């Protein structure tokens, strides 16, 4: 087995007695001693601090940068103002996913692409492959970059004393640059939990300083360090897609319910023709949210959805929901069965159990 990759905060996790796991080749904390339920609750009601330094950062710069990213992604990049962010994807010609990502507009001709850790090498190669036709440079800044996510309703109160940058004016999906605990950071009002919060990008070597400062400022306010375990339950409650689960290279953007990131009228981009065709002919399957009806029935990733004993779909993500107190999941089911209140069955270890389609997102914060 090859050596696991480590983020700049690896020693901090070990000092906090985190339970470390191999996450796509990275040595990452799945939970700290408080446990997934307590960490989940901290993020929903107070604050949690995540190390997401494993995520990939790719910088694209130059006169052709905008045109390259317009070509590679379905969302309307030209609509972004400087300091704004949007969610989008890299698609193959057939409309399926290379990856999903965030695009940060740093300048007229400069963009930061934030991609999944496990796909970073593939994504960087993908961008590089298409870049020569455009006048721009493409740099993989991932190894040099640390990323820390502060999430939860107390995030602003915890972070503001550590920076002179006024945080309140930063809108959701906007960012700015400023110092946090004396460290130059990109301060982004984004997250993967459904709560208010900030994602801080800094030089890898400075990440421990930022982490320690936020931990110290947040602990008296009930902040907990939070691992990948609760990151998954938090994002699932908000129906945020996870690559390898709701989206991958066999599922296209419209099936995944991500039509809102696909701007078919923006001009050509990779995957557009396939999605235009897909739009004309309704998809055979659709992603739905469901709950199982019995407490004992907890659906898990990849379990088959069955109808009259025959497989008709599959669960993409499933878990007990700490906030909702019921067992939730997302699944692809035939489109004609994808109606609110509709019932289907999931095969759990040889038993077909009942599930009901319910409204998503399962959880929405009060604003």
């Amino acid at each position, binding site marked *: 087995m090859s050596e696991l990759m480590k983020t700049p905060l690896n020693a901090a996790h070990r000092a906090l007695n985190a339970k470390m796991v191999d996450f796509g080749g990275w040595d990452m904390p799945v939970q700290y001693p408080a446990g997934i339920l307590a960490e989940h609750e901290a993020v929903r009601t107070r604050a949690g601090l995540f190390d997401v330094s494993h995520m990939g950062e790719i910088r694209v710069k130059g006169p052709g940068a905008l045109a390259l990213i317009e070509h590679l992604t379905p969302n309307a990049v030209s609509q972004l103002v400087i300091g704004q962010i949007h969610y989008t994807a890299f698609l193959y010609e057939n409309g399926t996913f290379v990856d999903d990502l965030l695009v940060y507009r740093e300048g007229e001709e400069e963009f930061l692409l934030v991609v999944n850790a496990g796909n970073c090498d593939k994504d960087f190669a993908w961008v590089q492959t298409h870049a020569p036709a455009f006048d721009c440079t493409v740099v993989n800044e991932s190894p040099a970059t640390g990323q820390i996510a502060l999430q939860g309703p107390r995030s602003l109160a915890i972070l503001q004393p550590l920076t002179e940058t006024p945080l309140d004016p930063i809108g959701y999906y906007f960012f700015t640059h400023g110092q946090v605990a004396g460290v130059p950071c990109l301060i982004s009002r984004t997250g993967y939990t459904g709560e208010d919060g900030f994602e801080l990008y800094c030089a890898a070597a400075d990440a421990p300083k930022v982490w320690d400062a936020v931990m110290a400022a947040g602990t008296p306010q009930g902040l907990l360090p939070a691992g990948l375990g609760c990151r*998954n339950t938090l994002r699932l409650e908000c129906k945020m897609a996870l690559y390898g689960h709701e989206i991958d290279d066999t599922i296209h953007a419209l099936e995944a319910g991500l039509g809102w990131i696909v701007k078919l009228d923006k001009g050509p981009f990779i995957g557009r023709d396939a999605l235009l065709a897909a739009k004309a002919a309704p998809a055979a399957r659709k992603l739905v949210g469901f709950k199982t009806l019995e407490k004992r029935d*907890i659906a*898990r990733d990849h379990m088959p959805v069955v109808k009259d004993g025959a497989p008709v779909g599959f669960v993409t993500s499933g*878990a007990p929901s700490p906030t909702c107190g019921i067992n939730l999941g997302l699944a692809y089911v035939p489109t004609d069965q994808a109606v609110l209140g509709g019932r289907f069955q999931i095969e759990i*270890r040889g038993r077909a159990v009942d599930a009901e389609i319910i409204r998503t997102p399962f959880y929405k914060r009060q604003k």
Partner: protein
Amino acid sequence: MFPADLLYTKDHEWIRAAGDGTAVVGITHYAQEALGDVVFVDLPEVGATIGQGEEFGTVESVKTVSELNLPAAGEVLAVNETLADHPEAVNEDPYGAGWMVKVRLSGGLDGLLDPTAYAALVSAESH
């Protein structure tokens, strides 16, 4: 972490024989730690007869699910009803309040690990 009065399985269950032909079964500290927060324990009907190494239930945590296998053959005399409302007892007190089933033994306690052997197994698995 490895109480001396218990025998263990390679799958991280423990069994405490009472000396009157009955025994109590649960999962080890190492097992509960690996699972994380337990949210549901599915246990058998009282009266069920289950062979050594056969599945008697499942334990679900937030993150994953694991089968429970009976360390020694027997008939189920009782199940821990309190786990229905307090599954966290498995995490908090795996060798006590987190017990799972009580059985009347129908065979021996062959093939089980003593505390020293189990400690060595855990040490090997966690490194």
